């Protein structure tokens, strides 16, 4: 048990949005009572997986201090992130927490040379006293992602491939030697043949530089490949979380099972389970507004109680599952409602 504070401690965080006008409108709970944490002394790759509308993007904005939680707290290195008000405190924060965005062609302005952002970062974080020193730091950062300043010099985004831009984006994030990187769908817009180099890069960062990565994706295959732990999100809730091998090889929650089954495998002989027909929802709003378990409308194992109240978190083996199926015969991790 380490005595230093956790790197990141998300405690019962809820984010609600008001949609519609000042009068009337509805409450959209994008993130609902989410808790998880990352240790400081054990760098890891933690995946937040889910489909669109699951709340993962809202959660990532929250962790980057782009949004404030409606309820709950986010602690970074022991400090409540919402107390960061002054600009100097914000700069100290972002030196340690950096993002990598989804669309490589939007990450940098098409009218600026990509290296400009790297030099900006060095200058704003006061890491060099002159241009030559700054160039050295920028070059180091680029080399750690397999590029160099000479390759990238004077280039505009459209002159580089998606894979190269993503690498530059990671290099920029690495300049301040952060402890945590938030990568939001970093490879979904990158060509298939270039994808693995970015994914492998995250592993290298964890192993060689001790950087923890929160990897946000809907692609379970790459999540399996690089993560240590994974949390599956559905409509704002974390429905299952735990070590990635356990969650993805032996999924306990029916939604995780559905997700895993729906991932097409590049092996024609294994088509059977994917070929089973399923039902799709008509609109998403209906699921959000549902009382009780958000998956109840589509769950093959639904019970009456599922529609009455939110399911409790239950420990099943090494994973935590938010499902009534397991709440009778296994020990609970939190006080839950017993039917």
């Amino acid at each position: 048990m380490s005595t230093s504070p956790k790197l990141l401690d998300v405690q019962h965080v809820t984010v609600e949005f008001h949609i519609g006008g000042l009068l009337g409108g509805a409450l959209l709970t994008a993130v609902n009572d989410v808790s998880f944490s990352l240790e400081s002394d054990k760098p890891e790759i933690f995946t937040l997986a889910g489909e669109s509308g699951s709340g993962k993007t809202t959660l990532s904005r929250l962790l980057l201090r782009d949004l404030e939680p409606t309820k709950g707290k986010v602690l970074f290195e022991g400090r409540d992130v919402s107390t960061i008000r002054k600009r100097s405190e914000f700069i100290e924060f972002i030196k340690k927490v950096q993002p990598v965005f989804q669309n490589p062609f939007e990450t940098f302005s098409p009218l600026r040379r990509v290296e400009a952002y790297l030099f900006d970062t060095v200058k704003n974080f006061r890491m060099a006293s002159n241009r030559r020193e700054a160039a050295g730091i920028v070059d180091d950062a680029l080399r750690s992602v397999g590029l160099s300043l000479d390759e990238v010099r004077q280039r505009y985004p459209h002159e580089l491939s998606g894979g190269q831009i993503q690498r530059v984006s990671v290099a920029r994030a690495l300049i301040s030697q952060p402890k945590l990187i938030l990568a939001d769908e970093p490879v979904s817009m990158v060509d298939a043949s270039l994808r693995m180099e970015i994914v492998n890069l995250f592993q290298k960062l964890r192993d060689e530089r001790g950087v923890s990565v929160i990897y946000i994706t809907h692609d379970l295959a790459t999540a399996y490949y690089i993560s240590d732990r994974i949390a599956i999100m559905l409509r704002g809730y974390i429905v299952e979380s735990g070590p990635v091998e356990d969650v993805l090889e032996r999924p306990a929650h029916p939604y995780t099972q559905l997700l895993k089954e729906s991932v097409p495998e590049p092996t024609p002989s294994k088509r059977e389970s994917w070929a089973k027909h399923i039902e799709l929802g008509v609109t998403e709003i209906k699921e959000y507004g549902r009382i009780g378990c958000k998956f109840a409308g589509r769950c093959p194992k639904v019970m009456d109680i599922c529609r009455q109240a939110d399911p409790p978190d239950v420990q099943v083996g090494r994973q935590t599952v938010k499902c009534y199926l397991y709440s009778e015969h296994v020990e609970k991790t939190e006080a839950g409602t017993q039917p």
Partner: protein
Amino acid sequence: MTLLSVQNLHAYYKTEAYGISRTVRAVDGVSFDLFPNEIYGVAGESSCGKTTLIKVISGSIRPPLKAIEGSVNYNFGDYQADMLKISQEELRRNIRWKRISYVMQGSMSVLNPVRKVIKTFQDIVDTHERITDKKEFLEKTRAHINRLGLPTDVLNAYPHQLSGGMRQRVAIALATVFQPALIIADEPTTALDVVVQRGVLHMIKDIQAASKNTVLLVTHDMAVHANVADRVMIMYAGRIVEEAPTEVIFNTPLHPYTQHLINSLPMIGEKSMKASLKGSPPNLADPPTGCRFHPRCPYVMDECRTVVPELVSVKERHRVACHLVKEASL
């Protein structure tokens, strides 16, 4: 009987502005055939030329795109068409929606956002077959929607009220109203979640199985091809590098690029290290000489840098364009 025969097609983009003229050789010598009652997959990354190929096949050849060489001929049984010579009027009247229809990545481009779905149906049907009996049209449309497993109330909704997956399925319903012989699906599920993707692809498969027409499915996702396509064709930098029935291409891929595409895909249950290719897809305005894949190929030989490998048949229905394979079969 071949539905579509593409022979030695070369289609380039020629732009000239402020003294800089560029020729992008997007499709550079492509030949393949499509048959009735099959799902034909086209795989390839961005800038491999597949989007240009589709434009030419569906007759959308507008400057700066120009078909320099080759032929694109359709045989619909009662009707033949030469895509490179056909008039826009003929395309509009006899081809689009009736014999060839299109499902694209963003369904919003076919669904009018300010009109109810049923109105879009009406617009499309009306341009081809004057609707004389409105009630009959509504009944037929409802039946069509139901047959595809969609609830009829989607007809009365506006597109933005439906989820992304539902919109895409409505777009597919639109594309199949006239039972076309060829449905071109261009990255139909790329932006969709994996569960929704499964539903949409199932729908495409069911339609194809019921009407026994041809579906040309273009996507960079090899896993989708593995589960949906009957035959797969791999494109790289404007050329075909391999083409074979799905089982064959996944079990015995012969071209190094295909091998990489398949082997680099991570799978749940497997934690072995996956490598990536060095380099990046080439610039089609200035492609590499010889085999366009040679700068990135792990098995590159001298010949590859200068001589363009021909697409040859190595087995029944299995074609490859690679000097390695040519050597082996000698």
